């Protein structure tokens, strides 16, 4: 064993490089995490490990619906380590958002980035709190797009996909920008194996509805439909905007469409004035605010267009408990 030359140790140890861009970037990122972590909470509402939530307003926490597996005896650990009881204000499986009401109006609301500010290539950090401390992952916004619908039919105001690794606690946590402001609520439950973040506009809208009514209302008329290509002659004869319509293949007994006299074989071409060529477009037209009102369905029956008024009902989902 050598190490006999005392002078060699300090001399051959390279001095750390001067304060650098990387160092200041690192400091900024750590500061962003520290700032946002005051607004993160750990939610104890499932087995295994806690999930993450974000303080939206004092006493109000938003999180991912699919991480809340227990609706009673929910407790929340705040960033300062204090524990607070919470009740489920409501959940919306279609957008994967749930809202908790804390038993006291505590918590620092998270600072939010401007809506619609997410840009492809922008640095983002995904924060989780699946335990006593906040955890972070770094990546970029990998794709943005317009409004889209989840596979459960929920409306998401903007498509924002992140390129970063998904770790335990990702869902229900916040995606933040390099200055620590929230750009979205993370969910791994909206797209398979892809890190999606729910934009603030959607969180705000859904949280508001959940806090007011405990659920997100969605319209229901009781039709099963299938897209069919329309004969060119019919499209031309009635100046239809689309070449595809939705053929009615099932009608629920006693449902609004049944009561309005829709028949099997009718082809729906428009709902409330909007052309529909895909089942998701029909679903999209049946928004919650239309529940209880009358909408006009334009259908082709025997090749001739006909307007039928349907009084929209409210969709019941299994999770609406």
């Amino acid at each position, binding site marked *: 064993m*050598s190490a006999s030359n005392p002078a060699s140790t300090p001399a051959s140890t390279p001095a750390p490089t001067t*304060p*650098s861009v*990387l160092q200041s*970037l690192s400091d900024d990122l*750590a500061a962003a995490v520290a700032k946002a972590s005051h607004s993160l909470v750990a939610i104890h509402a499932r087995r295994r490990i806690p999930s993450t939530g974000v303080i939206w307003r004092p006493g109000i926490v938003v999180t991912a619906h699919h991480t809340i597996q227990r609706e009673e005896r929910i407790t929340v650990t705040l960033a300062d380590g204090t524990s607070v009881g919470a009740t489920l204000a409501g959940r919306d499986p279609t957008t994967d958002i749930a809202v908790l009401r804390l038993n006291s109006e505590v918590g620092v609301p998270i600072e939010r980035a401007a809506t619609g500010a997410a840009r492809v290539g922008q640095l983002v950090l995904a924060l989780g709190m699946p335990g006593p401390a906040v*955890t972070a992952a770094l990546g970029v916004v990998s794709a943005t797009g317009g409004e889209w619908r989840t596979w459960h039919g929920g409306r998401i105001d903007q498509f924002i996909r992140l390129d970063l690794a998904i770790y335990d606690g990702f869902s229900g946590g916040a995606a933040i920008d390099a200055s620590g402001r929230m750009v979205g609520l993370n969910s791994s439950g909206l797209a398979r194996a892809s890190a999606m973040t729910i934009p603030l506009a959607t969180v705000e809208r859904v949280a508001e509805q959940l806090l007011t009514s405990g659920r997100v209302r969605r319209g229901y008329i009781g039709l099963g439909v299938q897209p069919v290509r329309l004969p060119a002659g019919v499209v031309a004869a009635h100046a239809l905007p689309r070449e595809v319509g939705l053929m009615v293949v099932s009608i629920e007994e006693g449902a609004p469409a049944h009561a309005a006299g829709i028949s099997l074989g009718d082809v729906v071409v428009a709902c409330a004035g909007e052309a529909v060529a895909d089942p998701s477009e029909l679903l999209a037209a049946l928004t919650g605010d239309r529940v209880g009102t009358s909408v006009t369905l334009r259908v082709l029956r025997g090749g001739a267009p006909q307007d039928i008024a349907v009084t929209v009902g409210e969709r019941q989902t299994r999770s609406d408990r």
Partner: protein
Amino acid sequence: MDSTSFLSPALAAGLELDGLAALVRGYTVQIASRNGTALGSGVVWHPDGLVVTNAHVVRDPRPVLSVGGAGEFEGRVVAHDARRDLALISIDAAGLVAAPVGDAESLRAGSLVLALGHPLGVAHALTLGVVHAVTTTRGMPRYIAADVRLAPGNSGGPLVDTSGRVVGINAMIVGGLGVAIASTVVRAFLRDAARSGAVSYTTPLAA
């Protein structure tokens, strides 16, 4: 910094990353068995031929170490701590570039870190990420979980801060996260090794 100040921050960061990679490559060694099987990576801790790695890397008591720029050396395992998963290898060399050792206590969630190693036989692969969490025991950092992509062969290699200082020894992958043994634990390991007489130093090692 001055020479790069006219660049955009992203370009300047890229250049710095290049420089940092070169610095870290200088003190990261590749460890293989005598029959040539790649075992993992190691960190030159002292210029006179002391290399730190994981205990699970040195399955061969006489591993072969290749030190960038200084060639290949037959090593002798002089300290082995299976509980901490750390080992110390001595090679007959002097004047090596030793790693500057950083302070794991200065790390916070979100701090940028780099890992260098020889994953799956790929020499000097670099990955960049942020600190995910630091776990402590009795107030001292013990493990650093980092959002960096590691693979077998990264074991024993350095986890480095943005100044090129070693803050941990990459040891395992848990749930996709790289987990490194904090430099504070390495220091304790080296103190114990010195105390037990396994290694004798005339220069302080675990300062």
